[in-house]
């Protein structure tokens, strides 16, 4: 399973997303990291080019709702149906809102790496080990 970790917007806080990258790799996942300051369109382009199975956005500046709506629109536009997740400084009331917008899950700061690994293991299907596309529903 291949997971895209991304940093949308101008926020440069990347300690958390890199910690997660190490954690996912240690747990046997393939990881692609976009680096800082990507637009949602750029992130989705990378997701398609790299044939990833899920997209994670790390957002610590408080702009998660704006960016999530944009992600939903761009995903619909490109007719991409892989799960996308949000992580970062997220108030609990916004976790529900993010999932309503279309995020598969939202993990607030303080979440354990183990729990995120557990989530990805839970959506992993046996045949996905070979990186087959079109996986979410």
């Amino acid at each position, binding site marked *: 399973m291949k997971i895209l*970790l991304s940093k949308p*917007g*101008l*926020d*440069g*806080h*990347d*300690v958390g997303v*890199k*910690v997660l*990258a*190490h*954690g996912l*790799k240690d747990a046997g996942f393939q*990881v*692609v*990291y976009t*680096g*800082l*300051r990507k*637009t949602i369109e750029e992130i989705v382009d990378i997701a398609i080019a790299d044939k990833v199975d899920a997209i994670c956005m790390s957002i610590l*500046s*408080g*702009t998660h709702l*704006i960016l999530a709506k944009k992600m939903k629109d761009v995903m619909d536009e490109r007719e991409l149906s892989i799960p996308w997740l949000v992580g970062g*400084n*997220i*108030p*609990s*009331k916004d976790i529900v809102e993010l999932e309503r917008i279309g995020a598969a899950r939202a993990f*607030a*700061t*303080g979440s*354990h*790496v*183990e729990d995120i690994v557990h989530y990805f293991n839970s959506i992993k299907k046996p045949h996905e080990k070979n990186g087959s596309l079109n996986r979410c529903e």
Partner: protein
Amino acid sequence: MKKMEVSTDVNRTHRSLKTAKELNVKPVFLESGFEVNPVYTADDIAGSDIENEIPGEYPFTRGIHPSMYRNKPFTIRQYAGFATPEETNQRFHFLINNGQSGLNVAFDLPTQCGLDSDDPRAFGEVGRVGMSIDTLEDFEIAFRNIDLNKITVSLTINGTAIIIIAMYIAMAEKAGYDISILRGTAQNDILKEFIGRGTWIFPVEKSVKLVVDTIEYCAAHAPKYSPVSVCGYHIRESGANPVQEMAYAFCIAKAYTDGVLERGISIDDFASRLSFNFDIYGNLFEQIAKFRGGRRLWAKIIKEEYGAKNNNSCWLRMIAGGGGGGLTKEQPMNNIVRSAYYALISALSGTQTMALCSYDEAYTIPTEYSAEISLRTMQIMIHEMGICDTVDPLGGSYYVEALTDKFEDEIKKEMKTVEKWDGIINAIANGKIQESVSKQAYTREIGIQTGKIPKVGVNIYTKKEEAKEVEFHPYNAKTAETQLEKLRSIKAKRSTEKVKTCLDHVKQDALDDKNLMPSIIAAVKEYCTVGEIVTAMKEVYGEFKEPIFF
């Protein structure tokens, strides 16, 4: 048998009673990676210079001034961010009326990344985490009716620092100030931005060139201005251990220094204007030794390697504050206690300036109440604890001195490692430093999550508590709209022709590898925007390509 040895050979006996193994206790390792003994004795500092070290004298291990806080306690400087130049101006007047003389200015992310408020990439970010600056007009509003000789302004800006410093100078010149006596500071440490914080714009080498431009310009025209504050702080917050925090900061300061020397400026003409910003959390003695050993090593580097003649060129002047990395969202009142320890560490380490995070900063915008507690924490220490009475009160402690020596050696060793990586500029450009720091952040985080690294309220002595709601600086769409309106109006008023000439000049100077300060000062005086100047520079320099190591 052992008793016999005590009477015949004191030193050897001390040694034989010291190690964890000999005393049959568990070994203890500091975060920096080396072991500490359960006991330290006179023979641990036998070869050290400590007997002859005096505060205020080279190599300044015990402090840069002879009497330190007896004359004047460390400066207290708390961080503050305001959305608009208008609000900042009000705040300045409030502070001046209350007898204060300095303020840190925070900027919003578009300003930090070189984007104008009307750039689509700035949407939702204008004025969110600090003041929004598009043109010199914003500076003129922020500093309206402020006597720049009475207030010192600290600009927390890096990626666009050369433009923001140029604006500060341009504003002062236009208002008739003599910039040869203008004071103030800018963070302007771009190399640490590549390691943590992330507001880089141009490729690493060109970024360093721009920092060197500002130092060269200030040395010649604004010698009282401190154009750079080298930040170990953010490197440590990104995962570096205390030894690396100092080593990388020194390598960075040396990279800027080398650049300035190459321009034919003498070390004594600018070294005293360099200052440092360091982090405090973790083991108390480790932090104190880090600062004492670091101060000695930096003095030696400046004197022995660079041949400085003036004592104050060798000073490690620093702001050392309690780091957010040590504070927790769980049982947040514990952070008040942690911060008091961090303040104590900072004072015992001989800092020049101190800042503390508020106890609630881990999850929300600090309230006036929590900011006041931080202030009182430092004031209680100053006025009730006798912390200012005597210089370097831990000087002469076997443990602290032995650890200070160890830190000097270890920082030096780590700096050698960076040299092996082809120097700090290459090690950052190819992601070597970022990779090693982020691996450590991971190890530390897993250590905390699995309970291997004890953290009170997080993995020991935990209790059920209501989850703390996360809060942000509210985004004010109206504030953003006002800023956009101002930008539209200034663009309509200014001379399009002059703007074009100025931007062409900046571009030409970049092509000719000249110091960009004069052409940028000229450009901002014609109200060229931050975004326009950055775009002109990008056309010549290109942009940094972030190395990805996953």
